[in-house]
């Protein structure tokens, strides 16, 4: 009897394990699927396997063992991304006193136990981009986090080293003079010039080291024929001294090598133009951040194909008044995107919970002239592309993560409510739909 009951228990636990392992297939039947990457699909089916989207379309075969989520009559769309968030971080802790500190990593400031994320999740936001503050000129590296809960930053991390955050002409305490602006620009430039020198030194060392090792090898080969007379080079090759490693420049040379983009927060149009000039001079990949007066230089930004994270759409999200926002224009995002600039929208709110307003920011951009589809893209696929995570999130396509939001209406409608949120195939908000 004991053996039999143990056997039953074993079977039972096996069943539970199997169901909890997430290996199950899920099929979502949705009234309208907003794929973002392509046309929306009426009465579509999304098939999920192992947390990834396996297939999507109108005639997708639903496997017999798949759990079906019936969302007919409802909208399904990819999880929203807030490209300018304070979630999981505390604003006061985002600014180093040093002005050049790209070696800092935002991940070290992430507090996974902040519970605000549940409210944000309930509004359909599944990923956020968090970056260091704007007090430092080169403030550190930002990261994309998923709102799936977790006890360590690593569990939530989608991508680290997304960009090195820089700031030009951002005032502290609303005081700014032309001279400080020049100094900002000059200091960042100086840091990159020093990084270039560091890179050259490092390359030189690597070359010398290679040469040294080559010679050493030759020497050893010669030594094998020791019986031969000891003619030829008597001087032994000298091992080159390794230059001292510098964590600041180690990061900056990655920026110079285009491995990490440079994200420059600039508000005034002169600062924006300076940011473009800086990126040109050092050949870095550039992401313009905030870009408050970008609408004045839309052509210039479009011509260089520099992507922009416009935030906030409304100054009401920030603690006003702020000097930077003096010429804020709610039509900024619309003017830039119509001018051919790739625009992502960020909430740039007062605190972490503000990220819940991501859909609201996009809807407000529509009210101010942005195209409806472009606005929807600007809180999903466009930020994913800019932040280098488009292979994982941002649209509903086969192969991408199953980060899916189900709403009872179009996300821009006031009456629309988020009913369910999935991250990597797991229901993280809402209950099973009937």
């Amino acid at each position, binding site marked *: 009897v004991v053996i039999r009951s143990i056997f039953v228990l074993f079977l039972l636990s096996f069943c539970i394990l199997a169901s909890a392992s997430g290996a199950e297939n899920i099929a979502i039947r949705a009234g309208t699927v907003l794929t973002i990457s392509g046309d929306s699909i009426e009465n579509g089916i999304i098939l999920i396997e192992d947390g990834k989207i396996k297939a999507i379309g109108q005639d997708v075969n639903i496997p017999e063992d798949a759990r079906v989520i019936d969302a007919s009559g409802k909208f399904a769309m990819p999880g929203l991304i807030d490209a300018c968030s304070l979630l999981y971080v505390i604003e006061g802790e985002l600014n180093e006193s040093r002005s050049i500190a790209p070696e800092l990593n935002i991940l070290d400031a992430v507090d996974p136990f902040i519970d*605000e994320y549940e*409210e944000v999740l*309930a509004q359909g936001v599944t990923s956020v981009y968090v970056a260091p503050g704007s007090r430092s000129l080169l403030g550190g590296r930002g990261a994309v986090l998923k709102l799936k809960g977790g006890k360590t930053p690593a569990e939530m991390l989608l991508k680290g080293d997304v960009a090195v955050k820089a700031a030009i002409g951002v005032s502290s305490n*609303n005081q700014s003079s032309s001279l400080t602006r020049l100094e900002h620009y000059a200091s960042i430039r100086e840091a990159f010039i020093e990084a270039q020198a560091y890179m050259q030194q490092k390359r030189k060392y690597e070359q010398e080291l290679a040469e040294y090792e080559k010679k050493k090898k030759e020497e050893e080969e010669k030594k094998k024929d020791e019986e031969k007379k000891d003619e030829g080079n008597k001087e032994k090759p000298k091992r080159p001294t390794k230059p001292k490693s510098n964590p600041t420049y180690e990061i900056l040379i990655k920026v110079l090598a285009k491995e990490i983009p440079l994200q420059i927060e600039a508000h005034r149009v002169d600062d924006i133009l300076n940011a473009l000039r800086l990126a040109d001079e050092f050949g870095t990949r550039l992401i313009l951040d905030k870009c408050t007066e970008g609408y004045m230089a839309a052509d210039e930004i479009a011509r260089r194909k520099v992507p922009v994270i416009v935030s906030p759409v*409304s*100054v*009401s*999200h920030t603690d*006003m*008044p702020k*000097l930077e926002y*003096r010429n804020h224009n*709610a039509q900024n995002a619309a003017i830039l995107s119509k001018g051919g600039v790739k625009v992502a929208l960020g909430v740039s*709110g*007062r*605190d*972490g*919970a*503000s990220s*819940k*307003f991501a859909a*609201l920011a996009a*809807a*407000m951009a*529509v*009210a*101010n*002239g942005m195209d*409806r589809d472009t606005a929807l893209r600007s809180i999903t696929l466009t930020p994913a592309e800019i932040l280098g995570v488009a292979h994982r999130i941002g649209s509903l396509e086969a192969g991408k993560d199953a980060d899916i939001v189900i709403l009872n209406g179009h996300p*821009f*409608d*006031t009456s629309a409510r988020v009913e369910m949120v999935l991250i990597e195939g797991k229901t993280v908000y809402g209950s099973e739909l009937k």
Partner: protein
Amino acid sequence: MQFSSDSADRQFCRGRFSHANGALFGAISSAKHYNYISLRRPNLPILENIQNLAINQVRVREVKLKIFLIVILSVSFSCHQLRAADKQQDLAIRAGKIWTVTDGVIADGVIIIKDGKIDAVGKDPRIPGKARALDMQDKSVMPGLIDAHSHLGLSLDIFGEIDETVLPVTPDMRILDAFNPLCHDVKKALSSGVTTMLIAPGHRNPIAGQAAIVKLHGGDWLLKRSAGVKFSVGNEALMSDREPTSRSGLMSLIREELDNGKEYGRSEFDPRREVLKSVVEGKMPVYIYCNTLDEITAAREIIDEYNLKAVLVGVREGDEAVQAINCPVIYMPLLSLSRDKDLKRVSAIADVGIKLAFASFAPGTDPYDLRTSAIIAVKYGLDPEVALKSLTINAAEILGIHQRVGSIEKGKDADLVILSGDPLELTSGVEMVIINGEIVYQRGGQ
């Protein structure tokens, strides 16, 4: 005595020096105020009278100068008004949806505007021959929005002061003296759809001064010169460098001042006590800024003790106090909040039958987001109809201006907002704004 003329002078300075453009308006109102004070000074002791004579002579010259200014101004103003009347055409607006607020939504209706007032609203009213027709058949028309608490236009610079920094109690101070209707921010706000706003001193003084109600544009821009007295029992009113420095100190100061007002006879003139007298007599409403539960409770106690005609401003916390509030509420701008419990509170307040209005606290938030506040409140449970009324007629009733604005009705001021879609959809943009029958903003236009 000395004190009161001091404060009058300071007020004068405010009007005169704090901003260039507003100086004209400031000078008019402070000149009037000044005359008023010097006229009401008959009971001065002789000695003091002689002392004051020299000063007064200098002042008389100033007053003369001001009268001269006023004459010039009024001449130019009437010229301007003549031109404005010329410009002001009768309008016939045909709209896809007319949100009257007080009488439902009229689909495919017409609004006739005559002499700056709404002359007729309906499916098919008679259109006067000379009226200019505006075709808005794919658009929505709603009454101009009312921002129930704003600090817009109070300084030339966005960092200007809206709070008196020396004296904690200045009920005689009128915010109108600092208001500049030509200020950049006011012009910019025309595109927000807000047509009327209550302008008030900030939150940092226990008894800060008198609020005013103004329109954002037009010849007839002043609705109420003195709309009530702004009180603050919020934390902001506690200072480290002057009294009050504690909450108890704050409450005792307010009580003392109200008691003073109560006992005020007219034997000697005191402008501060005079204002507070009309407050305790219930002739003048008070706007009490309070946020947390203890602040709301303290405000409620004072209201009951002195039987004040009160409106609460802020009310950011205090879910437990919702039942006890028992007076109209001007709620915080919702975009300055982010937690669900704060966003849901609006509907909780409305559910117990309290009349609500929205506010921008501009420049704290953008006046454009007055409507956004209402939409967020709806997203978090507020009834859409209540939200719409809170933006318009309910706000007008709370501020006592519902005879003139707040709905699309015959006889009311022609203050209208034309939107590309329904008022409570975020994607609806402001296409046109009309104040007193004059088109003051047009999207894509000037």
